């Protein structure tokens, strides 16, 4: 009797326990070994000894914390303010290239941070190159997709008749926005603000490329202390300081979200109207300006890659294999090698992420409460800064028998850690929509649970897995923070090579960096557009 009940409780129509257990082991082990352990090691290192007192008593620490906070706040505010206009346009109207527009914003969000930094370096006049404006600009362009997607999904569910009702009561467009739309969007705006703040607070690649040595974020300072000053303890303490700040933010937004949740019952309209009359100008303006903010820097990348001397030439592209400072003197950066290494790393990282992600999805959906723990655990790396992950791994895997610093798979594993959450999320959302009846139906037709599962669930996972694989590859190609710690001399990945080339003053090196950035940008955008289109097809079919 008890056993019968037990069996009934297991979802997925009772996959055998040995199967579920076998499948749960790899993701759990992966998480414990490569995330939890390094994380705990880092905590222990940061909290131990005199480093805490030394770090907290340095006035520098507070100055850096202050800069990190205010640039993140300013970036977030700007992103929201600038993002609301295009959000309005895409959630209210249908227009030519609407889909392409949204996909492009998404692609920019997935772009490597180093590439976005390089793009703003390319587009801004020299006077602004290493100014706070460059940093803010890059952060805004980067995160617009967060606002457009998060706020947009709430906005398109707001019936437009709500605006009309307000207008019929005498409220002009701006008043309607202020008194009706804004309060109703408030919880989605604060949700996207929290995400943008998280990303900009832990900004690393953009600051490394666009910031000055005297104005680091906590993330950059951790890197500088660890890799330039050799101050491991101080760097670890700073990591903890950053974690505390982020923990506070998460707690605060959770409370805010709960307090201001307003149920919006509407659904997204099947068809959005085309803009008419004055709307045409407004929509064109909003979409045009946004496209300019996002696309101009990317075009500037290409333009600058062709400008290595006076006038335009392909010199930088042709000399990608070579970086002599002077005959006989080389930079130690091998762009072509980096290209090949990045490709290899991406393939492996994708493979690791897919194996871990796929087994995790099966385990999570079969395991009930334990599954939820695994699910939450696998999401953690997403909220952890890349620096924390790379730094933790570097100081954990440095003693035999786990001295893995020289292993070729360490960098792809680090990338897989960041990419796995995406695989799990996109696949789980599909698994949860599969009616349990379908497996039951297969079972009544005589299929064993494993067979029924293979016949009903597996085919549905094909598309989300293909999309997730694309995303994982894109993430790996652009990963910079964790790689900065794990990479070894002579085996740089593309983003590392780009940053090193950008740090040089020679025009040819700059142009080479822009050429490599162009390659990386094209690869990432291509992957995202492909994944996005695949997703659309799946939705339509």
């Amino acid at each position, binding site marked *: 009797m008890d056993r019968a009940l037990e069996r009934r409780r297991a979802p997925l129509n009772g996959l055998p326990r040995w199967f579920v257990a076998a499948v749960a082991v790899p993701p759990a082990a992966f998480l414990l070994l490569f995330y939890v352990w390094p994380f705990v090691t880092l905590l222990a290192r940061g909290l131990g000894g005199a480093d805490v007192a030394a770090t907290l008593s340095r006035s520098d620490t507070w100055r850096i914390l202050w800069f990190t906070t205010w640039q993140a706040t300013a970036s977030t505010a700007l992103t929201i303010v600038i993002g609301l206009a295009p959000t309005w346009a895409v959630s209210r109207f249908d227009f030519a290239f609407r889909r392409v527009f949204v996909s492009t914003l998404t692609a920019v969000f997935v772009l490597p941070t180093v590439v976005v930094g390089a793009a703003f370096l390319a587009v801004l006049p020299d006077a602004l190159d290493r100014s706070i404006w460059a940093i803010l600009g890059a952060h805004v362009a980067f995160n617009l997709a967060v606002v457009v997607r998060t706020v947009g999904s709430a906005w398109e569910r707001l019936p437009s008749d709500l605006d009309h009702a307000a207008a019929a009561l005498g409220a002009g467009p701006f008043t309607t926005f202020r008194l009706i739309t804004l309060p109703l969007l408030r919880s989605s705006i604060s949700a996207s603000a929290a995400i943008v703040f998280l990303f900009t607070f832990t900004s690393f690649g953009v600051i490394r490329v666009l910031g000055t040595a005297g104005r680091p974020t906590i993330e950059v300072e951790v890197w500088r202390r660890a890799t*330039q000053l050799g101050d491991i303890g101080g760097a670890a303490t700073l990591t903890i300081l950053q974690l505390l700040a982020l923990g506070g933010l998460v707690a605060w937004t959770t409370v805010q979200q709960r307090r201001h949740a307003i149920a919006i019952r509407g659904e997204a309209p099947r068809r959005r109207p085309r803009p008419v009359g004055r709307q045409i100008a407004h929509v064109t303006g909003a979409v045009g300006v946004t496209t300019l903010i996002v696309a101009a820097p990317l075009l500037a990348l290409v333009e600058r890659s062709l400008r290595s001397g006076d006038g335009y030439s392909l010199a930088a592209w042709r000399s990608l294999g070579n970086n002599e400072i*002077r005959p006989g003197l080389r930079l*130690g950066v091998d762009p072509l090698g980096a290209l090949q290494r990045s*490709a290899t790393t991406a*393939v492996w990282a994708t493979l690791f992420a897919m194996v871990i992600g796929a087994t995790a999805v099966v385990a999570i959906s079969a395991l009930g409460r334990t599954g939820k723990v695994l699910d939450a655990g696998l999401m953690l790396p997403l909220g952890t800064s890349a620096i924390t992950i790379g730094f933790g791994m570097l100081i954990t895997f440095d*003693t035999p028998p786990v*001295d893995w610093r*020289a292993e070729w798979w360490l960098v792809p594993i680090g990338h897989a850690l960041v990419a796995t959450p995406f695989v799990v999320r996109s696949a789980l959302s599909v698994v949860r929509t599969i009616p349990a009846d379908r497996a039951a139906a297969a079972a009544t037709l005589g299929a064993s649970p494993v067979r029924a599962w293979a016949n009903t669930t597996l085919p549905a996972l*094909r598309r989300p897995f293909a999309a997730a694989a694309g995303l994982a590859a894109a993430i790996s190609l652009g990963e910079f923070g964790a790689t900065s710690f794990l990479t070894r001399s002579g085996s740089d990945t593309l983003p590392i090579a780009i940053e090193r080339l950008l740090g040089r003053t020679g025009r040819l090196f700059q142009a080479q960096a822009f050429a490599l950035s162009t390659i990386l940008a094209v690869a990432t955008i291509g992957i995202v557009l492909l994944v996005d289109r695949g997703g659309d097809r799946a939705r339509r079919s």
Partner: protein
Amino acid sequence: MKRLPSITTAVTTAVAVAVALVAVSACSGDEPDTITLLAYESFPSEPDGPIALALDEFTEQTGIEVEVVISGDTGTMLSKAALTAGNPEADVMWGVDNTFLSRAISTGVFEPYEAVELDAIPAEFTSLVPNAEATPVDFGDVCVNYDISALVNDDVEPPTTLADLTLPQFAGKLVVENPATSSPGLAFLLATIAQFGEEGWEQYWQQLRANDVEVVSGWSDAYYSEFSGSGGDRPLVVSYGSSPPFEVIYAEPPLTEAASGVVESSCYRQVEFAGILSGTDAPDGARALIDFLVSERFQREVALNLFVFPVNPAVELDQAFVDFATIPDSPITIDPILIDANRTEWIERWNAAVLR
């Protein structure tokens, strides 16, 4: 409707591609009789250059191939070595200098070894490493260099002291290296600390900053991109006392007079070391390479390729080098113990005074 490739196909393809790529990259490296020499970025690494030819002779003698891997600036290279101590990126490291040496020793980067010809090297160098953690390989002086013709064009007399650099006629003319990442940068910082004292050096740097000093991350950036002698627009650069002969010897057409001069009172003595990285899996080869690096055969390439002085007194120097290089009578030095105790704090304070 076109379908996306199935997941099985995708995975199979991915595995195939990955295996192929790894196979390709595996072919190129890691034979047991190859050792890796890690060096700072201004180390010449062209395949057919004199340094490479010298290393080829080492291969002929011992059967051991040497692969040169270029890291970043000295500071970055050393920090990376500290983080990878015990499982190093290479077998031998070239180029830690006396300003960074104590850090390398305290972080256990090196495995002690006494080179065969160590006794031939003057005690003023070997005394810096009493336990033979590293082996001195060259020395030189970090000095402010000036572009003679650029100063003549501006109708400005060359500076003669460090204090001169804060004068208005040198505004916007000096480029230095960041002491956190660059060894000549650190040496120059130490020179100013020795000159102006614990109380005064920050103020001096604030004056330099007000005089629009430019800071770049490494020597090759400073010398090859910013210095007017090589096409940049700053006529004053922190470089080496042996930089002028370089300009004479490699000039086209050949010069008979130096194009750049050295501010002798600004010179800080720098000794560079090579060492065996602890945890190397080829300790015998690494020892043989250290022996070779201080041998007369390799040492005679040091002057004309790295533009520093060889530590091996058996080497005869090129006449142009002797004529145009500056070896100051009393270069500035600071006690290594003092450097070790204060390096991080000095760099932080410099950061605060100059970069913020």
